């Protein structure tokens, strides 16, 4: 029954497996399975919190290593050392052994200590350096004040002691002053010198002034170069200040205020010689500090540079290792037999591969106890695993964005691979735009490897869909040829089927009409003679509208056929007779008939027969509103055919409504009459969720008991798992009414079917109308490109001479850019969204259930691709 191999047509066959792995090689086995990426493990310890699990200690340890590695990375960024990124396509990392991981942990521990101590000493030294620099500035600037002030000591004294000194006194004193070398302390004037941030100066001054009531003399100078704050590493501009004041208390106050304003106060001697010594000393110390600083920096950089070479690889190893332990935490541990028990889903056809991987690991470890893998039967819904390749991946993604297909139903991505780009192309039909798009798609495919590294989000998105773009562009080339549009101009590839009827006395401006050739029609696409005519739109609108209806009909009929394939695969004949057949008849007797009429009307030569062609829209409306009334006849016997079809369609409605629910009830009652009972009636289970809980609880009791009271109960725990699963298995056979599970409730089934019927019948109409978007979008695209041409290239090509040539170059640039941005990117995105909707709504609603859950195997490859925090380490 099952196909020999998994194909992309349906999701892969899945098996629930149980693994018994010896405790010693648990880590290695999980590692190997992670490389394989084919098993999704179930959590067997649902009742345990994250802290109670067996391998939480190891995870904590690895978390610590990861933190240390991140610390190195931060330090590297600070020091401006480039990280050597790891390219997983080129470098392969061998799975590490436990000792390697331990070594790594130890090494990063010691490295962290080293780096942080280096960092610490670097910071202390840096602080010292800043202090010394500040002091030097203070000495230099304050020295300047003193040199200036000493000259004026007498003057200061005079002005402070003697208020009524004559105004000219200072002129007289000036002559005597130079030889007077007296000290401030003699005058009981003290001073405070220091450095303060420039933006605080104003506040500092005000506070000093207010607290000391103006009893001070403050002098300041700006330090020309900004100083680096060692704590924040930001440059700060600062001022040197010197404050003179009377008395010790006041000086103490000033010191306090300076401290509170976070100014640095430095010791400056008022004696010029001492000051000179101080400057020398400061300079010497500064030189020392700087050379030590340089050394420290060099050592740190060397250390970090060495780490940078292998940091990425370590990071990847640690994150893999963590994932392994997280997975091991899902396993249940049988203490008595020292065995890990794991449960999970895997593709049935890959079981041999998994088995041989297990065998390999066991052999390599030299263990006599084999690892066992058991397939268990269960009625749980397996996950949907749709294999993809480079080409189908993006198509599958746009389908999965809508939902996950039910296990084993027809993969909706199969038709989408062609219908999605084709319907896009119907809306995007322009040869010129399609060729540009094709070039872009081909470029992305040709330079696949280098372009893969680009992380810019919008580009990455376009790059991800490169194969979709390729198929879309190829189909757009075809539709462009059919529409005979290249940048809104037409091509004269074949001889036209029209001639102009030219009167003998033709003058420009006179209206001419076409004359159809006898037995020749334009063989491929739209006749170029229509291009630029006055009734061009009249013709193309009628043509494109009909085409939209026909393509929509074809698309929906095709999609509906998958409903038949699904029903047959799931062995639900009632879905064929109760849903598919009446639905198909309903749809075909209305819209199939319309399509046949469209084709028929095209094949009749109404002009030569001199008959009035009927309006098909009116025909369809009258078919419903006044059955039997024919406005303008299309063919003989039309009346009876239409009444017959209408009756046929109407009869399908009750069939759709009642056949399936009543059949299901009959089948259910028959089964009961034979004595079958559903599992749900025996035990107290109500829903699938409860069932799952109960299973978990059962295991929980088993395992928990085993853990608490040792050997005897463990066996029971395992047995309980098995029993539970057996029970589930019974359930699967007994209550198998298709997808609805256990109990049968007629009311529910009936309501479901009523909704389905109403939806289906209404959707037949609304979805058909929805396909008119194909016409609307293709009209909009064609008109927009025509407008762009007439606004840029049209007038430019009319000009002549050198000015005309320059104008042409400029307008061509504008034309090309606007074509790319508006007509290709914007219009392309809009056409894509419309086509996406046609796939999601109009097509999928006909056959797909989307009731599955995705298969998410434990896989390192996937982990590396998805982990955000590893992005910066992977090249």
């Amino acid at each position, binding site marked *: 029954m099952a196909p020999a191999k998994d194909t992309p047509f349906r999701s892969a066959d899945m098996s629930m497996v149980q693994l018994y792995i010896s405790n010693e090689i648990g880590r290695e086995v999980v590692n190997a399975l992670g490389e394989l990426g084919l098993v999704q493990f179930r959590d067997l310890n649902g009742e345990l919190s994250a802290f109670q699990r067996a391998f939480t200690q190891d995870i904590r340890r690895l978390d610590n290593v990861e933190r240390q590695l991140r610390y190195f990375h931060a330090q590297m960024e600070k020091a401006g050392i480039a990280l050597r990124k790891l390219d997983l396509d080129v470098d392969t990392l061998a799975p590490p052994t436990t000792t390697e991981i331990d070594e790594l942990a130890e090494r990063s521990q010691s490295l962290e200590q080293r780096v942080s101590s280096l960092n610490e000493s670097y910071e202390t030294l840096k602080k010292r350096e800043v202090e010394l620099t500040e002091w030097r500035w203070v000495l230099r600037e304050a020295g300047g004040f003193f040199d200036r002030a000493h000259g004026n000591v007498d003057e200061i004294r005079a002005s402070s002691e003697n208020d009524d000194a004559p105004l000219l006194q200072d002129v007289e004193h000036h002559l005597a002053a130079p030889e007077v070398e007296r000290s401030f302390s003699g005058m009981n004037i003290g001073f405070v010198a220091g450095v303060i941030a420039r933006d605080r100066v104003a506040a500092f001054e005000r506070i000093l002034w207010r607290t000391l009531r103006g009893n001070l003399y403050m002098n300041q100078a700006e330090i020309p170069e900004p100083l680096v704050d060692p704590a924040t590493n930001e440059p700060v501009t600062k001022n040197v200040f010197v404050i003179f004041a009377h008395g010790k208390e006041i000086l103490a106050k000033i010191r306090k205020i300076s401290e509170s304003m976070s100014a640095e106060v430095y010791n400056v001697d008022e004696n010029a010689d001492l000051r000179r010594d101080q400057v020398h000393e400061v300079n010497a110390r500064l030189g020392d500090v700087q050379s030590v600083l340089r050394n420290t920096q060099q050592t740190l950089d060397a250390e970090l540079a060495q780490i940078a070479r292998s940091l990425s690889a370590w990071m990847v190893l640690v994150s893999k290792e963590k994932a392994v332990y997280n997975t091991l935490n899902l396993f249940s541990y049988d203490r008595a037999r020292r065995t890990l028990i794991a449960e999970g889903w895997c593709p049935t056809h890959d079981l041999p591969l998994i088995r041989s991987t297990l065998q390999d690991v066991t052999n390599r470890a030299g263990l006599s106890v084999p690892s066992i893998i058991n397939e268990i039967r269960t009625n749980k819904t397996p996950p949907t695993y749709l294999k993809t390749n480079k080409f189908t991946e993006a198509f599958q993604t746009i389908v999965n964005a809508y939902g996950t297909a039910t296990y084993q139903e027809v993969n909706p991505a199969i038709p989408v691979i062609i219908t999605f780009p084709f319907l896009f192309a119907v809306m995007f039909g322009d040869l010129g735009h399609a060729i540009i798009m094709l070039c872009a798609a081909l470029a992305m495919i040709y330079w696949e490897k280098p372009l893969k590294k680009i992380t810019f989000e919008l580009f990455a998105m376009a790059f991800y869909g490169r194969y979709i773009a390729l198929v879309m562009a190829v189909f757009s080339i075809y539709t462009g040829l059919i529409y005979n549009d290249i940048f809104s101009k037409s091509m004269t590839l074949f001889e036209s089927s029209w001639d102009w009827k030219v009167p003998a006395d033709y003058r420009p*401006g006179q209206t001419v009409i076409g004359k159809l050739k006898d037995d020749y029609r334009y063989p491929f696409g739209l006749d170029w003679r229509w291009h630029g005519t006055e009734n061009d739109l009249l013709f193309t609108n009628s043509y494109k509208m009909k085409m939209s209806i026909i393509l929509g009909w074809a698309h929906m009929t095709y999609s509906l056929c998958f409903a038949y394939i699904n029903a047959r695969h799931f062995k639900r004949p009632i879905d064929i007779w109760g849903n598919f057949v009446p639905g198909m008849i309903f749809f075909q007797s209305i819209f199939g008939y319309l399509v046949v009429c469209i084709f028929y009307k095209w094949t009749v030569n109404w002009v030569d027969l001199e008959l009035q062609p009927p309006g098909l829209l009116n025909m369809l409306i009258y078919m419903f509103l006044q059955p039997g009334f024919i406005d303008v006849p299309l063919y003989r016997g039309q009346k009876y055919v239409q009444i017959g079809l209408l009756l046929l369609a109407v009869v399908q409605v009750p069939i759709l409504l009642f056949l399936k629910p009543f059949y299901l009830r009959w089948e259910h009652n028959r089964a009961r009459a034979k004595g079958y009972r559903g599992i749900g009636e025996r035990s107290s289970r109500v829903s699938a969720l409860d069932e799952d809980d109960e299973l978990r609880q059962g295991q929980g009791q088993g395992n928990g008991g085993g853990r608490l009271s040792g050997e005897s109960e463990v066996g029971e725990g395992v047995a309980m798992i098995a029993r539970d699963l057996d029970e589930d298995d019974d359930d699967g056979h007994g209550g198998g009414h298709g997808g609805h599970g256990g109990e049968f409730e007629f009311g529910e089934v009936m309501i479901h079917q009523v909704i389905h019927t109403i939806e289906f019948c209404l959707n037949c109409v609304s979805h058909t109308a929805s396909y008119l978007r194909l016409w609307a979008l293709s009209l909009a695209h064609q008109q927009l490109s025509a407008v762009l041409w007439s606004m840029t290239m049209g007038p430019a090509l009319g000009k002549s001479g050198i000015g005309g040539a320059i104008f042409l170059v400029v307008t061509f640039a504008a034309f090309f850019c606007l074509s790319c941005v508006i007509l290709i990117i914007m219009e392309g995105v809009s056409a894509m969204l419309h086509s996406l909707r046609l796939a999601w709504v109009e097509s999928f609603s006909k056959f797909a259930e989307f009731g599955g859950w995705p298969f998410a195997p434990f896989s390192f490859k996937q982990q590396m691709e998805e982990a955000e925090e590893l992005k910066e380490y992977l090249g």
Partner: protein
Amino acid sequence: MANGWSIIIGLVIIVAMCLASWFFAPKGENQVLWRSSLILSIVSCYLMWAITFLAQLHPLIVPRRSDLRKEYIHH
């Protein structure tokens, strides 16, 4: 040359192409993908061509324009 029979001839050609795609699709697990994609695109393209051809087979309106220059009117 190109008259109403073209539709039938085209149909014969695409049926042959579909059969060829069915039988010569590369073997392997993606065979179903090749078959479905090739046949679906052949049929879609044929459908579009046929619609366009049929729409012009017996047109109900004739092209009309009044901006033709004298020297181009016979082309």
